[in-house]
Structure formats: C-alpha cells, structure tokens
C-alpha cells in the first residue's frame, strides 16, 4: 500500500509541474503581448487558462483523496498541504496573466519608447521569480525558494518607483494620463505575480523544512519549529497584495 502511495505522490508532483508549465506559458504570452504588441497571442492565452482551471480542480480532488485514504504524516502531509496552496497560487498567476492579456488594446496605445525601463525589469524579474519558485519545488531546493522570497523586495521597490516616476513626470512628459495609468496597472499585475511566486516559494520551504516563513515575525518562530537542520533566517517580506 505504501508503494502505491509513493507512486501516487510522484504522479501528483507531475500534475503540479504540468500545471506550472502551462501557467509559465501564459505569463510568457502576456509578456509578449505587452512588449511586442502581438495580438495573435491573446486567444492562445485564454485557451490555456481553461486548461489551468481544470487542472486546479483535478489536482485538488486528488489531494483530498490521498489525505482520506492514507492519513499522511510528516513530509507527505506537508507535501499535500504545499500542493493545495501552490495550485491556488498557480491559478491566480493564470488570472493575472489573463488580466494583462485582455488589456491588449490599451497596451497598443503605449509607444515602445515610452515603456519605461523599470517596467521591463519588473516583467523580467517577476517572470524569473515564478520560474525559480517552480524549480525550487521540482529540485527540492529550499535555498532557491528562500532566494525567491528575497527577490520580492526588489519587485515591490520597482513597482513603487514606477508610481513615483509617473507622478513626477506627469506634467513634464508627453505621457497622457490614460497611457500612464495603463502602464501602472501593468506594473501592478507584475507586482502581484511576484507576490504569488513568493507565496509558492514559502510553501516549498514549508514542505522541505517544516518551517513557516510567512510574514516577518515568523522568523522568531523558526528556532522552535526547526526540523533540526541548520537554516538561515528569511529576509523580511511584506504580506502578499490582494489578488
């Protein structure tokens, strides 16, 4: 029976990886829609969203079945908790990608030369965070997951800078209010993508180490809940934004 459970857990991991791959594709499509103004990609993004939503339901149901059948403990239990939370974040990432994709008509109005460097960095950084958080899960790499959490501060900083620069340049530059607003909204979506990636990374750390590193005050609790392995304290991070 235990051998079957191990097979089931491997299958579960593969299902999560498949869902993560689909979500990464959605984010890449949205990035290209924003940067390259390629309208042909919008329909494809919507198609993948359907698949991602179905996958979330299927994986969640599988997790519930495994819990009912096997009453898992320790690492097995933490894996299932991690997966249930991860797929929720992956589904939200899909929603955020669609939020970006469906504003294609508005993005068309932003000339390339007006697309600030900060937005490009924001896109690149938050996309990288998603990729790295999923790799941390696949490779069972808690250190990589912690590094993702640390990157969120830079994403937040870039997004704030975007807002400050927009307000500062509103009068001086030839960016009209509507165009500027669209850029800020795009920035906000990517900031939220960074938050989702951070949430995934936190769940991976919980799965691998049994440590809850959500919210800055969890750092003090690390000593008590330590699994016995030496770990470094996480960087302070803010609560994830509204999704």
């Amino acid at each position, binding site marked *: 029976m*235990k051998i079957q459970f191990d097979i089931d857990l491997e299958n579960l991991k593969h299902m999560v990886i498949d869902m993560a791959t689909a979500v990464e594709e959605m984010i890449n499509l949205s990035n290209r829609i924003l940067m390259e103004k390629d309208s042909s990609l919008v329909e494809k993004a919507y198609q993948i969203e359907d698949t991602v939503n179905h996958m979330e339901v299927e994986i969640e149901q599988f997790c519930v079945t495994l819990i009912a059948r096997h009453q898992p*403990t*320790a*690492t097995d*239990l*933490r894996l299932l908790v991690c997966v249930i939370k991860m797929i929720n974040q992956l589904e939200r990432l899909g929603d955020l990608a669609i939020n970006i994709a469906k504003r294609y008509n508005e993005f068309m109005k932003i000339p390339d030369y007006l697309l600030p460097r900060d937005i490009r960095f924001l896109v690149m950084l938050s996309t990288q965070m998603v990729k790295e958080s999923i790799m941390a899960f696949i490779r069972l790499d808690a250190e990589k997951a912690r590094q993702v959490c640390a990157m969120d501060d830079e994403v937040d900083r870039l997004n704030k800078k975007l807002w400050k620069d927009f307000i500062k340049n509103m009068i001086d530059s030839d960016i009209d209010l509507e165009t500027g607003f669209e850029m800020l909204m795009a920035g906000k979506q990517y900031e939220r993508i960074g938050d989702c990636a951070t949430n995934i990374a936190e769940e991976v750390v919980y799965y691998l180490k049994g440590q809850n590193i959500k919210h800055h005050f969890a750092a003090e609790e690390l000593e008590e809940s330590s699994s*016995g392995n030496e770990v470094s304290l996480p960087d302070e991070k803010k609560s994830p934004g509204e999704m």
Partner: protein
Amino acid sequence: MENKENNEITLQVRDLSAYYGKQQVLKDIEMDIQKRRITAIIGPSGCGKTTLIRCFNRLFETISYAHLSGKILYSGKDIHSLDPTKLRKEIGMVFQRPNPFPTMNIYNNVIAGYKLNGVRLKKSESDQKVEKTLKKVALWDEVKDKLFQSPQELSGGQQQRLCIARTIAVSPRVILMDEPCAALDPISTSRIEELMLALKKDYTIIIVTHNMQQAARISDFTAFLMLGELVEFGETDQIFTSPKKKKTEEYITGRFG
C-alpha cells in the same frame, strides 16, 4: 525536550536502562511526563514500550530476572523508595485485553481496589462511588440495571470501560494504558478514545499504542522508541508534522517498521 515548571511534571525518567537478565531492553531513557496530559509511546514491536510503562508502576521488577538502572521520580520522589502497593494505587494500569475479575459482579469489580486491600466502605459510600465512577466512564446508563450481574455478559468495549472504572475508583493520579483498544472494534475504540480525552482533565495518562493514528488523534506528547532507545520525544503535533529525526519520519510515514 522542553521542560516546563516542575509542578507540571508528574513522572521524570532519568537515565533509565532495563535488563532481562543480560539482555538490555531499554537504554538511557530520559523523559518527563506532564501532568494531566496524554503521552503516547509508539514504536515497532519489541522496542521496549510495554517494558517502559511497567517500570512506572514497578510491575517490571516482579519478573525475577529483570533489573534496571537509573531513576524514575514520581512527584519528585524515587519510585523505589515508595511502597509498591501504594504506588500502584496512585499509578493504575489498564491492559490490552479487558480483564474484569470473573468471580465478581460489575458492582464489586468497580470497588475491587478497596476490597482487595481490605478497605471497608459503607454501603452508601460504595453505592455513590460505583455510580460516580461508572458515570465517569460513560457506562452507568448501560449497566445500572445489571450491576450485580457478571461482567462476562458485557461487550468487549464495555468490559474495557469497566476495567478503566476499576482503575479510577481508587483515585489514582496516573493511568497507564497498554494498547487498551487493541482487542476492540472501531466503534468501541472510538468510545475509549473519547473517554481518554475526557479523563485527562483529572488524570495523567500514558498510553502504549501500535496505532499511530490513535496516537496522533488523542495524545499531547509522543515518545518514539526503537530498539530500546528513545529516538524522539515531543509534542504530538510536531512529531507528526515535522519530526526532527529521520528514523521518526521513516516510522510514522510507514517507510519502515
């Protein structure tokens, strides 16, 4: 292991080793049993679980070739400095197979602890004690009309609750339970578990169990033994979600044992 204030610790085990002749069955056990909590002892067959709890009430030493080293302190006093009969009144025991005394009726089984020690109770006192104790183990309604019948007519679960009643009738402070549900069906097991959760308000309970889900369900602390050694001891929530030792993880996830 975190050690809370001393007045919350009922039993302290210090450097305890136990031997059957030359064979060592417990090795350097150190643990504190907290008052009015349920502590589960888990581990593969032959790891020393039953031997350990039999040390607490000095039943272990009734085997002629058994001996131990180290100390067990009960409320701060070495149990080997205490009268064993008095100690066993304070540290009662419930066994795996229900064992009501077959020559006594249900009523006398409850107050057997007094009878066998030559303590005479007035009828009103014993009536009160029997009713109160049987209510405490949720057996009163089921047997109140047949108190003077043989306990052999009761179901396995009822007999086990009667044995628990017999144990608590003499007002112990600690109850040792050696796989108390092993011979019972799931519904009876569930009732005994509910009873244990209710009893822990008044008693310190130590339970040996092969059923890890049972340990996870009802205990506050869990001790994992393997080959006579205490591998890990901690709060049950922590043991079952994030065990510190690899051997503990392997055992509770069923990857060995």
